[in-house]
């Protein structure tokens, strides 16, 4: 690596992968509970498993984003990190907070956890994805601010590239919009309305800036295409992201008590949300086709291309599938939402973090690329995880369509639980695909330990 301080990224990447493994194990537990309802009950009720599954996802992605920025910012700004020490302290604080929170979910009844952690002072808990106790939420804010501070100070003393500006802007948005998680009014409509300011404006807004910046960085590195070209693409893509995605928040406001005009705003703008993802796909393939060098890290290029395609499918296509208000009227809150959620998070965010790890980790370990055999194993892991996640999505889509048919469209609608029995075959198939995913992930982790002749720097 070019700058000594980039080394802090390694810690973050290792933690990200470990928590990713935990996320998948809890995903498999939940998947089984869908069909064997009393599995692990009452030790780990479904709601606890789900909290662990989704919170681990958020935390490992944040570790990934942070690690990625500590790696790429020194290279972009051509200067050492402002404070590697602060980055290391932040790492341990965040890891401790994350692990304690997960243990809290698993070991203490949620209501007792709320009482212990001061939820009576300021109630913020018990809302989807924002289940964290108050001290954890405060911790997340502090960690995000420390990260933002470190990166901004580094940028101020070095070269200011579009990639680093966009990344920093994304982080700033992440920190600012998370503040809405502290607002939990009794009025359920307002609660839901501003809850989306965290959830939607993160994943369909500012996180996409971070995603775009990370992808652009890796593409410059592995293709050697001129920075001017890559950064122009980056700006155009994220312009479309914000133009479509901000008002696109409206697709969550159809049925929660907000005025009916959101059905128009939400439908029109969110129907355009696939555009930036499609542009990202075109961009990634274009850059790789126009490459000026053959980077020895073939696996990183595969992850990068995979990100662009799977993000388009998961976030773009599967989002579009149920975003128009007349369709969403029937699809809202069914397994179709779960299908979209899985492929979108995997395709856009899990894959971009894995892309960055794939590119940076060999360099952090002192070589340009991993040995051939390690790369082949890593590419197998890519295909196993990606194809199995695609199948998880297909099975959940099947479940969702049948659910909508039996429970909502039929002239003699069946009850929720009766429908769940009817679609259990899809849940079994999904669990099978989940096991393949776990095999892929295990292979991925093993690929770090494959020995052989590694590619030295040119």
């Amino acid at each position, binding site marked *: 690596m070019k700058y000594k301080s980039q080394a802090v990224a390694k810690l973050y990447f290792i933690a990200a992968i470990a928590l990713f493994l935990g996320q998948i194990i809890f995903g498999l537990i939940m998947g089984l509970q869908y069909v064997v309802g009393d599995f692990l009950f*009452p030790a780990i*009720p479904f709601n606890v498993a789900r909290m662990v599954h989704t919170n681990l996802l958020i935390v490992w992605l944040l570790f990934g984003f942070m690690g990625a920025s500590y790696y790429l910012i020194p290279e972009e700004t051509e200067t050492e990190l402002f404070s590697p020490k602060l980055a290391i302290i932040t790492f341990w604080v965040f890891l401790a907070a994350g692990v304690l929170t997960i243990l809290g979910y698993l070991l203490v009844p949620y209501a007792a956890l709320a009482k212990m952690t001061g939820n009576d002072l300021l109630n913020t808990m018990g809302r989807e994805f924002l289940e964290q106790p108050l001290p954890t939420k405060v911790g997340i804010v502090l960690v995000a601010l420390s990260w933002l501070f470190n990166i901004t100070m580094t940028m101020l003393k070095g070269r200011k590239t579009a990639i680093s500006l966009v990344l920093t802007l994304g982080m700033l948005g992440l920190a600012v919009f998370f503040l809405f998680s502290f607002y939990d009014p009794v009025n359920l409509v307002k609660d839901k309305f501003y809850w989306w300011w965290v959830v939607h404006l993160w994943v369909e807004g500012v996180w996409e800036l971070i995603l775009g910046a990370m992808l652009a960085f890796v593409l410059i590195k592995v293709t050697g295409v001129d920075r001017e070209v890559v950064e122009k693409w980056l700006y155009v893509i994220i312009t479309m992201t914000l133009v479509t995605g*901000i008002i696109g928040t409206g697709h969550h406001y159809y049925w929660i008590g907000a*005025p009916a005009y959101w059905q128009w705003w939400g439908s029109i703008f969110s129907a355009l949300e696939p555009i930036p993802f499609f542009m990202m796909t075109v961009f990634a393939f274009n850059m790789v086709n126009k490459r000026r060098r053959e980077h020895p890290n073939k696996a990183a290029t595969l992850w990068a291309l995979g990100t662009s395609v799977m993000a388009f499918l998961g976030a773009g296509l599967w989002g579009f599938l149920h975003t128009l208000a007349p369709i969403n009227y029937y699809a809202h809150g069914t397994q179709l939402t779960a299908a979209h959620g899985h492929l979108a998070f995997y395709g856009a965010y899990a894959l971009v973090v894995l892309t960055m790890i794939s590119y940076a980790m060999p360099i952090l370990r002192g070589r340009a690329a991993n040995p051939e055999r390690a790369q082949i194993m890593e590419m197998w892991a890519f295909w196993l995880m990606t194809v199995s996640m695609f199948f998880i999505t297909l099975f959940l889509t099947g479940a969702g369509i049948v659910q909508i048919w039996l429970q909502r469209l039929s002239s003699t609608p069946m009850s929720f639980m009766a429908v769940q029995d009817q679609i259990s075959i899809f849940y079994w198939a999904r669990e099978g695909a989940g096991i393949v995913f776990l095999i892929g992930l295990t292979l991925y982790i093993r690929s770090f330990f494959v020995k052989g002749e590694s590619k030295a720097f040119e």
Partner: protein
Amino acid sequence: MSATFTKSMARNVFYGGGLFFFLLFIALTFDTMQALPKRDNSQNITPAVAHGKKLWEVNNCIGCHTLLGEGAYFAPELGNVYPRRGPDFIKAWIKGQPTGAPGRRQMPQFNLSDADIDDVIAFLKYASEINTNKWPPNIEG
């Protein structure tokens, strides 16, 4: 992309476009907040409803159920459970958990007092009277 469209033009379009649509979003939000009192049933928020919402949250009900279509998809929609089942059924149901039926999905026992359960029901009644543009499509949720 053509050479006449430079990177700095792209950057300006990004900042301009992002800012414009964010301001538009703020304006729509402002209008929504003005319109809400006619739709959000907030005139019926009593201390019991407020306490019911808190109990809903600290027992992580959203971890299995949906409420107005949002949440987990493991257990039934509860935005309209009040008209679907009525208060007596809901109370008996919460008290009777877990069923222990082998292989069936299990709801935990939350050890709520009768007064607490009444407040949860008050919250669910309030939620069911929010104007949701006629969602869900039928009583099954």
